[in-house]
C-alpha cells in the first residue's frame, strides 16, 4: 500500500519525544445512583503506544472510555485527551478520536457502505478508498444490509468506522469480541500498524490473551479501581508457569523439601516415576533465574517449563482480596507511573 500524499496533518511523535500523554486520567470517579462505577482511577497513556485495560465485566472499562468521549461526565476527577479536557469537549476533539463502543448497535436498514459514508460525514476526513481498503483487509462485504450481518461482521464494520479517518487516538471497547481467531490476528496487526504510524490505541478486553500481543502496557481494573499497571513483559515475568521436572538420584521427599523451600513454588507434588526417578509438578510464580540456579545441582532427566499463563495470573489478581492484589501490583504500578511520565 502506498500513500501518495505526504503532508502530515500533525506532528507524529516518536517514543521519548512525547511531551504530553495522549490520555491523562486523574482520580476519575463516577457514581451512578448508589453504585460507584469508577473509584478514583488514575493512569496515563503515552502518545504512540498501545494501552490495554482488562478487567471482569462491570469493572468500569466502558465507563472510562465513555468518559473520555464525553458521552458520560465523571462525578469528580478529570480526563485530558490529546491535550484537551474531555468534559464538554467540542467536536474537534472527537474528530481526532476513533471510537468503537462495547455494545455496538448499528442502524440496520442501510448498507455498510452507506452507514460508513454517514459516519465519515460527521467524522474526521476519510481519505478516498481507505474504507474499501480496510473492508477488504477484514474480508467484509460493504454492500450487504447491516441487519443481515453476523455479530462478527458488524464488529468489523465498527472497527472500520473507528479506523477509517486515521485518528490520533483509537478508543476501542472489547474490539475483538465476535471476531474469529484469524480476524483477531488481523485486527491486532492493524493495531500495531496504527502504533507504528504514531497513533495511540486504548483498548479493553476481559481476557488478556486477546490483547497481550498488541499492548505495550496493561492496566488491570477491578471494581472501579486500577489494581496494577504493568507492561506485558512485566506481567510475563511474574506470571504463573506450570513446571514439571524429573530428577534421578533423589528421593521424592528430598526433592519436595528442596523445591518447597524456593520462593514462588506452589502446588508442589512429588512422586516416584515407574523408572524410579523423582518427579515434581508445581507452579512457579517468581522469576525463573533463581529457580534454575537452585535446581542446577539436581541430576535432571527432564524439565518442562510452560509458557507463562497470563490469564491465570490475571484471574488471580481479579479474585484476590483487594489489599493483597494491590500490594502485588503496587510496586510495579509506581514504576509504571514513573516510566510513563519520563
Amino acid at each position, binding site marked *: 500500500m502506498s*500513500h501518495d500524499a505526504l503532508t502530515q*496533518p500533525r506532528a507524529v511523535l516518536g517514543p521519548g519525544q512525547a511531551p504530553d500523554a495522549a490520555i491523562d486520567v486523574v482520580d476519575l470517579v463516577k457514581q451512578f445512583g448508589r453504585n460507584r462505577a469508577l473509584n478514583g482511577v488514575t493512569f496515563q497513556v503515552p502518545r504512540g503506544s498501545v494501552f490495554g485495560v482488562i478487567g471482569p465485566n462491570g469493572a468500569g472499562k466502558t465507563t472510562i472510555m*465513555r468518559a473520555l468521549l464525553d458521552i458520560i461526565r465523571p462525578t469528580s476527577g478529570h480526563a485530558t485527551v490529546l491535550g484537551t479536557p474531555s468534559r464538554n469537549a467540542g467536536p474537534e476533539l472527537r474528530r481526532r478520536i476513533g471510537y468503537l463502543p462495547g455494545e455496538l448497535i448499528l*442502524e440496520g436498514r442501510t448498507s455498510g457502505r452507506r452507514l460508513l459514508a454517514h*459516519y465519515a460525514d460527521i467524522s474526521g476526513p476519510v481519505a478516498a478508498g481507505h474504507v474499501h481498503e480496510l473492508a477488504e483487509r477484514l474480508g467484509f462485504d460493504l454492500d450487504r444490509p447491516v441487519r443481515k450481518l453476523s455479530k462478527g461482521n458488524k464488529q468489523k464494520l465498527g472497527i472500520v468506522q473507528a479506523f477509517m479517518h486515521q485518528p490520533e487516538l483509537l478508543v476501542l471497547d472489547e474490539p475483538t469480541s465476535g471476531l474469529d481467531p484469524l480476524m483477531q490476528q488481523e485486527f491486532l496487526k492493524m493495531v500495531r500498524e496504527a502504533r507504528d504510524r504514531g497513533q495511540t490505541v486504548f483498548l479493553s478486553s476481559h481476557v488478556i490473551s486477546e490483547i497481550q500481543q498488541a499492548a505495550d502496557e496493561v492496566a488491570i481494573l477491578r471494581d472501579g479501581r486500577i489494581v496494577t499497571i504493568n507492561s506485558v513483559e512485566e506481567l510475563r515475568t511474574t506470571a504463573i508457569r506450570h513446571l514439571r521436572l524429573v530428577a534421578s538420584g533423589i528421593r521424592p521427599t528430598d526433592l519436595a523439601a528442596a523445591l518447597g523451600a524456593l520462593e514462588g513454588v506452589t502446588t508442589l507434588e512429588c512422586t516416584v516415576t515407574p523408572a524410579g526417578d523423582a518427579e515434581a509438578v508445581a507452579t512457579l510464580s517468581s522469576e525463573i533465574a533463581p529457580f534454575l540456579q537452585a535446581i542446577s545441582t539436581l541430576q535432571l532427566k527432564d524439565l518442562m517449563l510452560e509458557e507463562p499463563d497470563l490469564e491465570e495470573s490475571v484471574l488471580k489478581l481479579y479474585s484476590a482480596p483487594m489489599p493483597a492484589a494491590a500490594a502485588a501490583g503496587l510496586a510495579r504500578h509506581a514504576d509504571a507511573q514513573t516510566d510513563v511520565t519520563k
Partner: protein
Amino acid sequence: MTAVQDRARNVRRAPLPLFGKVFTDSWRGLLGWALGLAAAAFLYLPLYPSISGGSGMQDIIKNLPPELIKTLNYDQIGTGAGYAQATVFGLIGFVLMTIAATSWGAGALGGDEESGRLELTLAHGVTRVQVAAARFCAIAVKILALSTLTFLAVLTLNDSARLEIQVENLLGTSLMFGGVSLLTASVALLGGALSGRRIGGIAAGAGVAVVGYIFNALGNQSASLEWLHNVSPYYWAFGNSPLSTGADPTTIAVFYALSLLLAATAALALRQRDIGV
C-alpha cells in the same frame, strides 16, 4: 514507517449530514404517512355532497347524543368547512399526524439513545445541540410536508366535493394543523431527551395531544368546563373554526415559536445528561 496520508484531500462530505440522514432513514415512513393522510382526505371529503344534500344523514346526526356531537365537532358538519374540519383536520388527519409526530419526536433522541445508536453518533465530530437541532428541523420539514399534502388534497377536492372552503382559510388551517402537530413532536422530543427512552417521549407527546383533545371535548360540553379550552392546544388550533372563519396568524406563530422553545430545551437537556446509562 508509513506516512500518514494527507487526509484533507479527496474528501467529499454530504451537506447537513445529520439532517439528511433522517430522510434517508425514514423516507419510507414519510411516504406511508402521506398516503394515509391523502387516503383520509380522498375517502371522507367526496362524501360531503351526499351528507349535506338533504339526505337522511343530517337526521341521523341530529339523533346522536349532543355530547357525542360536540366531542366529534359534528355540530358544524352542515358546512363544507365544518365537515372538512370535523373529519380530516379535527379527527382522522389529526390522529394520523399526532401518531407520526409523536413517534418521530420520541424516536429522534430518546429512541435513538435507548437503542444505543446515539452513543456512536455523539462519539463523532458533532455536538449534542447539533444533533438535536438537525433532528428537530427534519421533523419540522416532514410535518410541514404532510401539512402541505393535506392542503393540496383538500384543495383538489374543494370543487368536486362542493366544500366551498376559501383557499386562504385552508392555507391557514393547514399551517395550524402543522403547528399543533409540531408542538406534539417537540414535546415528544423533549420527553425523549429528558428520559433517554422512547417511551418517555411517547408518553409526553401523546399525553399532550390526547389531553388537549379531551380538554377541548369537555370544554365543548358546558360553560362550567369551558376554561379547559385555555389549556388545550387542540382548541387553540381549531376552536375558532379556522376553515370557515380564517386562522389567526398570531396563534399559528405561537405554535411554531413554542415548538422551537421546546426543541431548544430538549437540546439543552440532552447536553447536560449522561448518554446511554
